[in-house]
């Protein structure tokens, strides 16, 4: 019974948040415009300017990963608004299992990232061709792991910091993650200290694995391990933080 309630709670909350996100076509359209103009103008021109082999393809994958970040990580805005407005207590009044509610929030953020990236991925495939069956597996696996990881990271920030600190913290973490990753530039162009940081960066790991899926580089066990470890760490932190918030409310 308890397991059924857990699963039911998880699915209901994940479905509710998922539909709520796509009920706002303006946000989805904004992200899509951002990606398309980035790919059609930015990547095309920089791809011809920069003397890095296949830089256009390199950047397209980077922008796709950025799309996952923009949706999954920014899911924290939903949760932080609920924390700030005290809306969470209404969720507690529902006949839901708290564990299911917590895991449902992580899955909702991840599902949004995965759904949105499907559009970007279709564009990337149109530009770069279909990946091999193994490459497809690597790409899909990376998208799932990265979405869960970033959604958990966002949730961990939204639940571990005071409301007035949530926005600055998420902005700082976001900027640090984006600019020290391999989303825009390959590691061989980076200065040495940055190259070291980029190795442990979860966005780098995701982008490198997806590039490997598209056959642009070799798949690395280090990236896969890094992505899994961060997913576990952020997953535990987010569940712990959200559960604590629920507990504080009674």
């Amino acid at each position, binding site marked *: 019974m308890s397991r059924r309630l857990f699963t039911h709670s998880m699915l209901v909350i994940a479905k509710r948040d998922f539909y709520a996100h796509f009920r706002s076509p303006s946000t989805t359209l904004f992200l899509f415009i951002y990606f398309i103009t980035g790919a059609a103008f930015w990547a095309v021109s920089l791809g011809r300017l920069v003397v890095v082999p296949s830089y256009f393809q390199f950047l397209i994958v980077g922008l796709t990963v950025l799309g996952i970040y923009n949706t999954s990580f920014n899911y924290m805005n939903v949760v932080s608004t609920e924390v700030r407005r005290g809306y969470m207590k209404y969720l507690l009044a529902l006949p839901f299992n708290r564990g299911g509610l917590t895991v449902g929030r992580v899955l909702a953020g991840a599902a949004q990232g995965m759904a949105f990236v499907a559009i970007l991925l279709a564009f990337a495939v149109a530009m770069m061709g279909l990946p091999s069956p193994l490459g497809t597996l690597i790409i899909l696996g990376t998208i799932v792991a990265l979405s869960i990881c970033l959604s958990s990271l966002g949730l961990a920030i939204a639940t571990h910091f005071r409301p007035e600190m949530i926005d600055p913290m998420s902005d700082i973490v976001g*900027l640090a993650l984006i600019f020290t990753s391999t989303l825009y*530039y390959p590691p061989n162009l980076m200065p040495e200290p940055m190259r070291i940081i980029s190795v442990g960066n979860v966005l780098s790991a995701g982008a490198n694995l997806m590039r490997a899926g598209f056959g642009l580089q070799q798949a690395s066990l280090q990236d896969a391990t890094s992505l899994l470890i961060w997913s576990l760490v952020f997953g535990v932190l987010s569940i712990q933080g959200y559960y604590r918030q629920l507990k504080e409310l009674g």
Partner: protein
Amino acid sequence: MKVVLGRDVRTFFTNFYGVGFRTLVVVLETVIFAFILSNAVPPGAVGRLTYLQFFALGSLVVSIFWASYNIGRDVYWDRESGYLNYLMSLPISRSEIIAGRSLGGSFRGILTALPLYVLAAILVPTTALNILESLGVLFVFALGLCGLGIMVSLSVREETRARLLNTFLSLVLIRSSTAIYPVVAMPVWLQVGARLNPVTYASDSIRSVTVYSQGSSVPVLDITIVLIFAALAGTIGSWLFSKMIEGGPTE
């Protein structure tokens, strides 16, 4: 006019965190993104400048764009909230309100870009006169952007549509211009778009004016196009704004 101008500048910087964050992003784009890519851009690909210098000067235009173009959004909100009714009840003429909004948008653009100017001046050594001249060009360009922003925002009645149209136009205008990459790097179809884009002429003229030295040519064509853009967009924006005031803010 001073009252309207002062209020626009003040309200913009009330959101200090938002303005500061956007400036930080542009600074990081220059010192990290452009710095790293600079190593992979062959010498001569962006004229006499390195890619880092090219990007630093282009980012001034991008920064001004965001700050000034958004005056249209503010005008839209004022119409929705009824603040325009209040402005019209004050002993200020309508033309002063319109001029105040445009000047306010341009001033806040210039103020936002000042930290980036310091960075650009470090990366691209130049004379004080060149900096002043480029500030003048940017100010005129910002006036045109205010007109364009007002024009777009007042042409659409629904807020979501206005926001989306603004986002779309901003991204397309910036990314299809020479603010971030030179025209030679663009595919032919994009080069055509870039040639029709006023942001291209503003970016090119800023670079030419900043690195101007005796013997080099003055970018007369680029500056003329920036002036024409400012005059056209400013006039149409002001006309639409004044028409809206005549029709009443809620219509």
